[in-house]
């Protein structure tokens, strides 16, 4: 029992050693990033660090999950949401800085398969020669909601409903298709921007409502210069170039 006490004390000491140098990085900011924006966010954070020396610590997940966590006082200072509703709600909830909200990217939906000749267009969905169609959880992830909208617009939701499997966020959806467990799925165009294999169909924008992806500075980060600097960087030309490279449109108005 005594030995156990020492082990616990040792672990505590080790943990505090690991912890303290972290506190020395004063110029860092915690950013919650919608899963579809994972790849560009990493590149932007690297460019941000190269330019300013500040660190953006990124967490990836579903926007809905982040919203819930932020309402419960999660230590995020910026949210890069996959929609415009949740940042707006955070401002209304008094958790976001009102005039910091802007559209950093407009998302595009793609139907993607690992098989080279499976996805040809909307007729692929109509002929339905597949067992599983992966989408993101439509209640929590805007790309999931857009996928449902698309299926409904094509009047294919009812016949295909039994084939749908849901990832908790768009990353898990991608992974379902990537591992071949689902033959095809609705993913974010950004996720397959650097994938050359397989087959894809860029879903026409008139089939789903525009996916305005808004960023918001949270009140927690309002006093942190690294946080405000990251927001400014995200609006700048360097970040925009990266965002466009991944297949997003950049909202001209912002």
């Amino acid at each position: 029992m005594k030995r156990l006490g020492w082990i616990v004390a040792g672990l505590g000491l080790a943990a505090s050693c690991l912890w303290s140098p972290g506190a020395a990085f004063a110029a860092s900011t915690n950013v919650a990033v919608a899963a579809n924006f994972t790849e560009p966010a990493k590149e932007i954070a690297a460019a941000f660090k190269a330019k300013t020396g500040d660190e953006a610590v990124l967490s990836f997940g579903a926007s809905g999950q982040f919203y819930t966590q932020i309402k419960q006082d999660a230590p995020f200072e910026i949210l890069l949401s996959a929609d415009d509703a949740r940042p707006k709600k955070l401002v209304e909830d008094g958790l976001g800085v009102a005039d910091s909200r802007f559209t950093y990217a407009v998302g595009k939906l793609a139907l993607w398969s690992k098989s080279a000749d499976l996805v040809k267009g909307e007729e692929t969905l109509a002929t339905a020669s597949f067992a599983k169609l992966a989408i993101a959880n439509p209640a929590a992830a805007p790309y999931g909601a857009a996928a449902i909208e698309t299926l409904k617009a094509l009047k294919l939701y009812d016949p295909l409903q039994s084939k749908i499997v849901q990832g908790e966020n768009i990353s898990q959806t991608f992974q379902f298709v990537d591992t071949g467990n689902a033959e095809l799925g609705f993913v974010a165009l950004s996720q397959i921007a650097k994938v050359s294999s397989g087959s894809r169909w860029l879903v026409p924008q008139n089939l789903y409502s525009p996916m305005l992806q808004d960023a918001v500075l949270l009140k927690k980060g309002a006093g942190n210069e690294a946080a405000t600097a990251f927001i400014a960087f995200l609006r700048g030309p360097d970040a925009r170039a990266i965002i466009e490279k991944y297949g997003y449109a950049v909202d001209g108005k912002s």
Partner: protein
Amino acid sequence: MGGLSGEIWRPVSLTLELAALTTALLLVLGTPIAWWLARSKAWWKEGVATIVALPLVLPPTVLGFYLLVALGPMGPGGLVASLWGARTLAFTFPGLVIGSVLYSTPFVVQPIRNAFEAMGDRPLEVAATLRASPSRAFWTIALPLAMPGFLTGAVLGFAHTVGEFGVVLMIGGSIPGKTKVLSVAIFDYVETSQWREANILAAGMVLFAFVVILSMTLVERRFAREAS
């Protein structure tokens, strides 16, 4: 309960089905393993025991990751699924059963092995001198004597399957009525800020866990009293 959809109870019945089937399978598959682990003199048996115990320590994501690959078209699961024209066992109820069996094995095997070991060689030796065949000795002596271990194993296996999250999240695909079990449903409700539904299910789980642990303690105490 007005305003709540019937949807909320589907994960409950699905979870109970999954846990019951998993427990039954584990009792059938786990008993010979536990027996062998308790009786064998093979030098490598602790290696096998360690493999059985691995899920106790591994994060569920490790199992979830390997299962996702193994159940899919590139793994053995896809081969099995192709027998009936499917291409993967992921996103199916049988797939969840496979995952749950693997994940809950130690919770069933360990208590049964302990019970077999606690019994010692003596009862079986006595049975042998009375000319009982080994299989008869097993069914009429070893099994009844190890009953407390079976009971503990069954309850733990069942409860642990009910409480499983990581594996089913990774291989399930959250299909209502097929793979959307309780823990995933709670996760979904929290993620979408439906706290009332999340609360009902979560509070139910707390109650369930309390009853399981309390009744196990009481049962164990009773067996201990009977034995002494």
